[in-house]
């Protein structure tokens, strides 16, 4: 099932829920695949299964290349068809490596499905009555049919969640994950346009210094580091649906690998947009550091929440509310500390 653009119709009027499920209104946005919420995350067993199938491919390929006769004999296709078996081995090896190394294993799993069907066709010829190896062929046929089912299962699941940080290998299952959202009075199109203009990003992302486009889909980010100095990384847009959603992930070599998506969900009855942001990241220094940062309100979630607030402020009021730089009397130690730790915006 395709995940709906609006998740589970939560917070929507009955009319809208109806429209979403019945697709009666032509103006209703086409169903949109989003990076799912925590409870809709990809089934990690499917990822494991895909890995298993990858290794299976590699093993079978190696066996077929180095011992084509034994494999052919075992499968019931005969010892004399070594050339064909070797060919199948090369194919299996390539597919296995593809599944195990590529960010998106789904196409490689689909190629396994196609290959399985081809193999079944070859084996079917050996099922003719009177064939000497009919018994062995029948066993092989059943085995390949079973593997076909597994391949199809893994392929379809990973296709559904393609681009998900866990599936694409950007994020590890142990990474931290959070979601946050904010309601704005502007339309999804306006929100999308503002976000998609990368010059705007440093205006509302507080720790961001600059974003430079490398090409259409790849960008170079420079951000303030947790201590002195700055962090830089490249990222690419993995999904770009004008007026609806954006998703991105860091490219190899990022100090803090992360992936995220922002969805511009139309609020009920034309009440603007609910901007939903989800982020996967591997924190610098691991989970302990992340917990400490949270205590000090310096964790990425609190920061991103404030970034979203600034996004909304810029969009709706054209500026970011501040008191930084206004006059005050003499500050006490506590007042200075509050400023220092960002507990108040005032100076």
């Amino acid at each position: 099932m395709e995940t709906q653009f609006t998740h589970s119709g939560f917070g929507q009027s009955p009319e809208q829920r109806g429209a979403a499920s019945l697709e009666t209104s032509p103006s209703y946005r086409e169903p949109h695949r989003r990076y799912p919420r925590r409870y809709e995350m990809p089934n990690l067993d499917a990822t494991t299964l895909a890995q298993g199938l990858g290794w299976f491919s590699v093993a079978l390929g190696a066996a077929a290349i180095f011992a084509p006769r034994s494999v052919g004999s075992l499968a019931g296709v005969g010892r004399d068809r070594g050339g064909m078996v070797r060919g199948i081995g090369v194919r299996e090896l390539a597919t296995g490596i593809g599944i195990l190394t590529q960010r998106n294993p789904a196409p490689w799993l689909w190629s396994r499905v196609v290959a399985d069907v081809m193999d079944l066709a070859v084996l079917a010829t050996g099922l003719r009555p009177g064939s000497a190896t009919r018994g062995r062929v029948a066993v092989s046929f059943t085995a390949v049919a079973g593997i076909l089912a597994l391949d199809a299962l893994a392929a379809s699941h990973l296709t559904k969640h393609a681009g998900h940080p866990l599936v694409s290998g950007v994020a590890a299952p142990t990474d931290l994950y959070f979601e946050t959202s904010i309601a704005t009075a502007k339309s999804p199109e306006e929100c999308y346009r503002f976000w998609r203009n990368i010059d705007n990003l440093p205006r509302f992302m507080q720790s961001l210094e600059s974003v430079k486009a490398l090409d259409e889909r790849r960008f170079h980010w420079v951000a303030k580091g947790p201590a002195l100095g700055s962090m830089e990384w490249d990222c690419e847009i993995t999904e770009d649906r004008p007026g609806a959603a954006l998703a991105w992930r860091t490219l190899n070599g990022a100090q803090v690998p992360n992936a995220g998506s922002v969805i511009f969900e139309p609020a009920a009855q034309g009440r603007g947009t609910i901007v939903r942001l989800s982020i996967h990241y591997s924190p610098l220094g691991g989970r302990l550091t992340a917990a400490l940062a949270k205590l000090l309100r310096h964790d990425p979630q609190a920061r991103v929440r404030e970034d979203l607030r600034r996004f909304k402020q810029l969009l709706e009021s054209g500026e970011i509310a501040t008191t930084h730089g206004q006059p005050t009397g003499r500050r006490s130690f506590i007042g200075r500390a509050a400023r220092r730790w960002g507990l108040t915006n005032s100076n």
Partner: protein
Amino acid sequence: MKANVWYGKEQLRVEEVPDPRILNPRDAIVRITSTAICGSDLHVYGGFIPGMLAGDIIGHEFMGEIVEVGSGVNNLKVGDRVVNPFPIACGGCFFCQQNQHSLCENSNPNAWAAEKLWGHSPAGLFGYSHLLGGYAGGQAQYARIPFADVGPIKVPNSLSDEQVLFLSDVFPTGYMAAEQCNIQPGDTVAVWGCGPVGLFSIKSAQLLGAGRVIAIDRFPERLRKAGEAGAETLNYEQVDILEVLADITGGRGPDACIDAVGLEGHSHGAFGAYDRVKQTLMLESDRPPSLRQALKACRNGGTISIPAVYGGFLDKVLFGSIVNRALTLRSGQTHVQRYLSPLLKLIEEGKVDPSFIITHTLPLDQAPEGYRMFRDKEDSCIKVVLKPWAEAPTLGGEELLASDESEEGGGRQKPHLH
């Protein structure tokens, strides 16, 4: 510039601080000609408002002359004479679009902190704690006004500062309190507290068609003002309020009750002592005797409107009364921006002269004395107006200060001196 700076509970000092400057395109700087001490400022003074930091400039009722505008302000120019509303509102968010300016989503830079306390953040306010934005207040010679294209209203020179100053807070606050009562012709409205907000609630209830307005307080001079404003008055130290209200209304109770007292409410007897002990031990943040009484007094299906300030947790509030007697509770910081034009019109037409609440006019330098007098109701103090540019005090028991004409412009009236 000079400003009234908060340094802790009952510690105010008028000090020299840097002048404000434009920080955002939609800012303006106003040279303040008149500012006032609000009853809610007394909660700050008394240390009841959380999120204050030593060094904060306080005050949120002010007016003056625009001396600088940011590049994003098109409807004001240097020299305009304006009154400034106390909530800060962007004009573009969901709430501003519905004229609920005190709930603006974009004006509180410390919204996260307010969310921790109240669940969601209201608008930023001038000089009213860092929970509400930490904006420098208006008891100063200059103030920076954010979103100046939305807030301040231009006022004609034919009206004096004293006539229009209270558009910044107490007049609209009293008006909204009455408006929230959904007054029907002939309704009886009871008002707890005859300070400035209570007095404007009384005036407004009458403007909105109330049949009888009953004012409750214990200070004779406040009750006298309420009487002058057209209310029947009750002194709660002399009569049993619940009994008398029931009696006046034939046992039914007032159609609407307005609580214009707030978190430092006063009551005597065991309950009064109980509240003071609990508040001192920080077991309750607010003392709500007036609200408790209103919850008992109001008629079935009636409305309780709360313009008063409550900050946190209340104790012994009879919630069952709301449920079993179908009461409606209305409250909120005032959406001042919404009321500026209509109320200015009332003033221009002579239907209301808000200056009637003023009892004292002091130079800004005397702000700390003004707070103390106001809190202690000394010298029958009801409303203190501060003049930021007045020369150092002439002093003496009687005040003060004739504001200098040359500065205010010839056409305006002299301030009230009592």
